[in-house]
């Protein structure tokens, strides 16, 4: 219990919102809390905690559950919060001062279980019968007063969508009391009790309307052929929109950070601090923020899709594909999200109910080709097929396909060895088809975007600083090199740059590590590029640019062309066909993202999982790249 003596500025009154999934609880919460809603974590768990300080209390939106008495993590968290043992990070946990039970007017009977369980908690309570507008349309009538008499507390009808009844609800919460009737606690008795109350207070129309449309849509979306086709179309459309629409803000962000960097460089005298700020910190932040448009778009569109009810059906379609490989249909959204960035994808894996399924999903999520790999894919496919945009597109798409296949394969192995056991079959409520809630989708997207910025951003900045320092020191003492007469100015500058680089810590690490990558066909410069990518994959292109050309303007075509034509120390080409293929395969399969590793460790509950992920992906990447290099060398 929190100290009663402390005088909180903020009210320590806690109101917990409890209810089944799909009853519009979140919509109702959003309507009450508005922009004051924040998302954090329930400490020690992997459940999101939406909460808001409003109306004189801390409102906590508990995860939607069918019953408190189940052993799924959502129910466990709800039990702990109601017992006063758990609260969102930063909130002092104590037994809630009131419970707001949100139930669905169109599905009353089933909701009675959670009502009974809430009554049994003997806390002040109000029941909100949500979706009254929908109930009216379906010809369902509920006697709210009678309902309140039956259970012994206030029952308010409302609609989170239209806002109707919300004021009344808040007033009822202020004067909430412990129910003066009790409810049974044993499952059979609860169900009978619920039936009785339902028969007293609700009246429904005989035949529900619109069922045939729902039936037909369901059958189409889950059809073994049509369902898959629909799915492919929807996904292709989704990705196309994301790539196309995101390109504009991405260019803007890129330009803006470039300008910012130039401005800061002009402001400060030249020197290490300027270098750290511009090439380390600003470049690092810019490199993270530039993926925000894709992430925002993906999550927004996914939230919309989910709001329509389609995603639930699509999950079953995908379940058929994923189950033989040891993941469930619930892994669909996490794996899809990982195509923008594995960090929010791995966090989305929280919605996978079975622990082993979930762990498998987390472990293989980084195989899904994320946005950061795209600059590398583009560079290499252009180098490999300079005159054939068609082949470039095919190669580009193949990279994604290989990533997915590698993920499935890895999941299969993990589920046959360390995470043995069958994949839990899916049982999921299929919400009715409806128009998505734009506001809820927007708020969800905002939450996820902020989370991405905080997690990825902080890590990438830290790594950028360290990498910059390793690449800046020690500085080579000024020495003049005697060049032969026929070396051009450019060649001389290149040689100076090379010596400078090799003198630094990063360069020395590159020299030391390079023999490891020799069988893959990488020279010193490529090795440094790959090492630098550990901070963030897309850094590869700019690192190569700096070594080859002295400029890191990765957008400049001439720079890209120079990279393509780069030469090794011995004069031969860096990007031979064999090396390029090898590099491409390496980038598809390698775990090259430290921020993702950190998130894996957190979400999977231990660093051993992160090391496993790193080890396995490195092994796969190395072998794949090795085979690619040797095979292509042999064939040419």
């Amino acid at each position, binding site marked *: 219990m929190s100290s009663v003596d402390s005088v909180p500025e903020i009210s320590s009154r806690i109101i917990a919102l409890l209810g089944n999934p799909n009853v519009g609880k979140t919509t109702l919460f959003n309507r009450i809390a508005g922009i004051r809603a924040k998302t954090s974590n329930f400490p020690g768990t992997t459940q999101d905690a939406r909460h808001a300080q409003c109306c004189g209390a801390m409102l906590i939106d508990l995860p939607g559950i069918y*019953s408190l008495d*189940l052993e799924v993590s959502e129910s466990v968290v709800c039990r702990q919060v109601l017992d006063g043992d758990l609260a969102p990070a930063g909130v002092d946990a104590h037994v809630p001062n009131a419970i707001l039970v949100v139930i669905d007017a169109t*599905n009353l009977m*089933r909701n009675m279980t959670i009502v009974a369980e809430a009554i049994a908690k003997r806390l002040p309570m109000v029941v909100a019968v949500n979706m009254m507008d929908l109930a009216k349309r379906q010809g369902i009538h509920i006697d709210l007063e009678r309902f309140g008499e039956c259970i012994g507390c206030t029952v308010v009808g409302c609609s989170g969508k239209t806002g109707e009844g919300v004021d009344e609800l808040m007033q009822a919460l202020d004067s909430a009391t412990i129910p003066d009737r009790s409810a049974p606690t044993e499952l059979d008795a609860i169900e009978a009790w619920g039936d009785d109350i339902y028969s007293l207070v609700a009246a429904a129309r005989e035949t*529900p309307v619109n*069922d045939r449309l729902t039936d037909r849509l*369901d059958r189409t979306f889950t059809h073994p052929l049509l369902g898959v086709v629909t799915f492919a179309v929807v996904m292709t459309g989704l990705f196309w929109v994301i790539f196309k629409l995101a390109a504009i803000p991405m260019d803007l962000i890129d330009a803006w950070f470039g300008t910012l960097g130039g401005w800061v460089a002009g402001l400060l005298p030249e020197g290490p601090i300027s270098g750290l700020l511009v090439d380390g910190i600003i470049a690092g932040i810019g490199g993270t923020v530039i993926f925000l448009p894709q992430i925002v778009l993906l999550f927004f569109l996914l939230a919309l899709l989910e709001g329509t009810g389609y995603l639930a059906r699509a999950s*079953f379609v995908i379940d058929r594909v994923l189950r033989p490989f040891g993941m469930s249909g619930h892994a669909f959204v996490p794996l899809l999200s990982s195509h923008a960035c594995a960090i929010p994808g791995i966090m989305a894996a929280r919605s996978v109910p079975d622990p082993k399924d979930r762990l498998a999903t987390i472990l293989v999520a980084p195989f899904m080709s994320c946005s950061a790999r795209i600059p590398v894919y583009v560079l290499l496919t252009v180098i490999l097929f300079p005159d054939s945009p068609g082949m470039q597109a095919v190669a580009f798409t193949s990279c994604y396909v290989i990533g997915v296949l590698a993920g499935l394969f890895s999941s299969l192995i993990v589920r046959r060895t360390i995470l043995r056991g069958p994949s839990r*079959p899916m*049982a999921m409520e299929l919400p009715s088809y409806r128009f998505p809630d734009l506001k809820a989708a927007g708020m969800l997207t905002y939450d996820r975007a902020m989370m991405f910025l905080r997690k990825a951003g902080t890590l990438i900045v830290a790594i950028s600083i360290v990498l910059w320092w390793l690449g800046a020191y020690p500085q080579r003492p000024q020495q003049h090199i005697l060049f032969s007469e026929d070396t051009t100015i450019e060649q001389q500058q290149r040689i100076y740059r090379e010596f400078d680089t090799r003198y630094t810590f990063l360069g020395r690490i590159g020299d030391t590590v390079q023999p490891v990558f020799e069988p893959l066909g990488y020279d010193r410069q490529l090795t440094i590029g790959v090492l630098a990518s550990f901070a963030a994959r897309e850094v590869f292109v700019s690192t190569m640019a700096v070594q080859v050309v002295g400029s890191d303007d990765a957008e400049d075509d001439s720079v890209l062309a120079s990279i393509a034509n780069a030469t090794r120390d011995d004069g031969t080409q860096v990007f031979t066909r064999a090396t390029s293929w090898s590099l491409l395969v390496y980038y598809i399969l390698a775990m090259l993202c430290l921020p993702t590793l950190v998130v894996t460790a957190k979400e999977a509950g231990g660093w051993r999982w992160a090391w496993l992920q790193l080890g396995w992906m490195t092994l796969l990447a190395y072998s794949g790249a090795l085979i690619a290099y040797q095979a292509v060398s042999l064939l040419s």
Partner: protein
Amino acid sequence: MIDHAQSNAHTSGSIPLTQLTRGQSGRVQIDGAATDEIKMLRAMGLRPNASITMCRLGEPCIISLSGACGGGCRIGLAKEIAGRVMINIERQSETQPDGQSNG
């Protein structure tokens, strides 16, 4: 309650959910141990004597919790789970889609 007693008298023919035909209705029959899976299904609405209608066969199996909820509640089940849910087919004589509501 009388209705339940009558349908229980015809219980000899309870079949797995997967053997229903499309559009066929029945009542859920739960017996045996309360495993986690059964508790979950019950909490989702597949409780003893809950009236359900088969909407889609196969993988996934889609059923709607008919009556008593305005028909707005559908549940998708993997075939594996559906095979473990037993259903009593009701005789069509008693009109029971909304047997619980009293107008």
